[in-house]
């Protein structure tokens, strides 16, 4: 009952004209980002983050969250109408969705994806409210030793679950930890890696790194080629699926919602993994799996529901534990820190109004998005006619303004450009940037917890295995590492044997 009372309080906070306007703005920007290929939600949130510096935490976070789940709605439009996914989690939607569009059922596909996304968004938010508050209550028992183990486990989970190449993901994480040590050290106040540059004394700003490696590098990759997109035209009245089709897909929507939410409660598995998993589930439970790939409605409804529920799922560890589950939630977590809030279990105690207002806004945001993504789809689809060549200079200008706003200096702009080059080549070499970003965010927290835990135990490392929660978390890391190590060795052995044959 507490959750419902708190949620009602959250509605009271977020139902002000300004907060509602922020939800509408976020939903609009998210839908646009989802529709336009070449810029994902993480990059857009990173670019917009510095512009929200002067705002209060609640409206700023309402806007950023709406942008995140709005992108999940919008992504399906481009996948279905053009066969070009607007963002990564809509890749799988293109497989069935575009086939349906070619059969003259674009409206059915768009409608099913919007209805599935709406249902998943609402159910996911209910799940988030109940799970995050329970988990946060439990994690209030955590001391420095538990926090250290938890941060470490969060980082390893992100790498093992989400990373394509474990070695490169680990390298990315190590570099992020290294970047996190730049600045004044917390123990003795000594300078590390600063070389007399005063701008580095406070460390490397998260916004600079995220705008460079996510924002500009993504623009550079998209700007490599001239992009020309011609979307299919859809009539207004064709946008609504029949009641029969919607009822037919009810189980797919429900399955997608459950898969997306629960999978993404685990750090590392973002909406992309959830949508692929949901597609796999739909194929395996289908009576006619051979038809998949030719335009099957469940293949659109399931994954689209899944990627929306995944957004709420990924926010569970972020709100409850202060651990980002994906690149996008890392940006949101960075936002929390920038707005002066302390992410982690204490957020529910010290800033309860804020947390519940953001959660309540997600119900409202989903209602706004269903309106934007059903009757307004033709309007948004027409945005695809704007040449990308006109869009990316504007994005780059906003990046420059954002980096300048961090410390009102051009040094930060230069640093962002250097990170952009690094990010671009990291993308080219399949080195994921997300672990680096998360390590930069969580590295100082990890170092502080290690320092506090060892101080309390008079330097004894045994504190990490003597405390049951910490020991359990460390055991999970060891088990995960063993599993990944053995799997990798087996893979290599099989490859060598194959080569010898």
């Amino acid at each position, binding site marked *: 009952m507490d959750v419902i009372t708190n949620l009602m309080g959250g509605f009271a906070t977020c139902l002000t004209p300004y907060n509602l306007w922020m939800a509408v703005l976020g939903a609009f920007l998210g839908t646009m980002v989802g529709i336009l290929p070449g810029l994902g939600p993480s990059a857009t949130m990173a670019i917009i983050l510095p512009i929200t510096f*002067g705002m209060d935490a609640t409206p700023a976070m309402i806007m950023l969250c709406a942008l995140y789940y709005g992108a999940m709605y919008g992504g399906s439009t481009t996948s279905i109408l053009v066969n070009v996914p607007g963002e990564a989690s809509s890749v799988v939607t293109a497989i069935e969705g575009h086939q349906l569009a070619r059969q003259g059922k674009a409206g059915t596909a768009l409608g099913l994806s919007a209805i599935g996304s709406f249902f998943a968004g609402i159910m996911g938010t209910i799940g988030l409210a109940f799970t995050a508050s329970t988990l946060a209550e439990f994690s209030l028992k955590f001391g420095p030793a538990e926090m250290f183990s938890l941060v470490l486990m969060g980082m390893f989970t992100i790498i093992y679950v989400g990373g394509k190449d474990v*070695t*490169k993901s*680990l*390298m990315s994480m*190590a*570099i992020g*930890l*290294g970047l*996190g*040590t730049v600045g004044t*050290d917390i*123990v*003795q106040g*000594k300078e*590390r*890696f600063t070389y007399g540059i005063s701008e580095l004394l406070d460390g490397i700003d998260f916004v600079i790194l995220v705008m460079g490696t996510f924002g*500009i590098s993504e*623009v*550079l990759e998209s*700007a*490599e*080629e001239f992009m020309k997109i011609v979307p299919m035209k859809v009539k207004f009245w064709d946008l609504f699926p029949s009641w029969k089709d919607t009822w037919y897909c009810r189980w797919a929507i429900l399955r997608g919602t459950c898969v997306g939410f629960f999978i993404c409660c685990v750090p590392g598995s973002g909406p992309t993994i959830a949508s692929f998993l949901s597609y796999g589930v739909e194929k395996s439970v289908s009576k006619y799996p051979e038809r998949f790939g030719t335009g099957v409605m469940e293949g659109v409804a399931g994954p689209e529901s899944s990627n929306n529920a995944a957004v709420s799922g990924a926010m569970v560890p972020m709100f409850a534990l202060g651990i980002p589950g994906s690149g996008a939630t890392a940006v949101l977590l960075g936002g929390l820190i920038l707005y002066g809030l302390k992410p982690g279990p204490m957020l529910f105690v010290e800033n309860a109004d804020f947390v519940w207002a953001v959660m309540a806004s997600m119900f409202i945001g989903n209602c706004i998005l269903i309106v934007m993504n059903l009757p307004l789809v033709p309007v948004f689809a027409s945005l695809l006619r704007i*040449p990308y*060549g*006109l869009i*990316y*200079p*504007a994005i*780059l*200008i*906003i990046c*420059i*303004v954002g980096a*300048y*706003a961090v410390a*009102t200096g*051009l040094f930060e*702009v*230069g640093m962002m*450009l250097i990170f*952009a*080059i690094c990010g671009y*080549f990291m993308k*080219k*070499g*399949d*080195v994921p940037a997300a672990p680096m970003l998360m390590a930069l965010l969580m*590295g100082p927290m990890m*170092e502080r917890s*290690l*320092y506090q835990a*060892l*101080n309390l*135990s*008079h*330097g004894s490392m045994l504190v990490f295995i003597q405390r049951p929660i910490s020991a359990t978390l460390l055991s999970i890391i060891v088990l995960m590492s063993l599993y990944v190590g053995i799997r990798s060795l087996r893979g290599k052995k099989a*490859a060598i044997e*194959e*080569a010898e044959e």
Partner: protein
Amino acid sequence: MRKADRIYGVIGLGLALWCYLESSRLDYMTEFTPGPGFMPFWVGVVLAVLSFYLIIDSFVRKSGKKDETKLLPEKHALYRVSAIMGMLFAVTFSMKFLGFPLTLALFTTAILLLLEHYSVLKSVGYGIAYSAVTWFVFEYVLSMGFPKGFLGI
């Protein structure tokens, strides 16, 4: 990708050495707790081990599909990316002298004219429009304090 992995491995080893050198001039431990050199030292060790593994693996692994991917893009794409980056660096260096609106107008015009092949008139038009909107929102409304150039704006 094999070649790329070797390059990343060497860069990783360089970064590891850098971390080690930085940690060596700082205290590794204080009385009970890790000192300022603790974290850079272990970051260096982890990076060195991973980089070494990446290099070794690039020599011993069987050539797969991912090894066909190239680190550098095609020539024309590389030209576009380099040009954009060059212009962005030029913006950073010239903003102090030219001022915020003029730099952004020149930047947009240059991108549209040289890379997107718009006509001179359209490029200049878009350049002025983008710059004016950005200046109005961020300087006039939000007073962000961007550098003023020789024109005084």
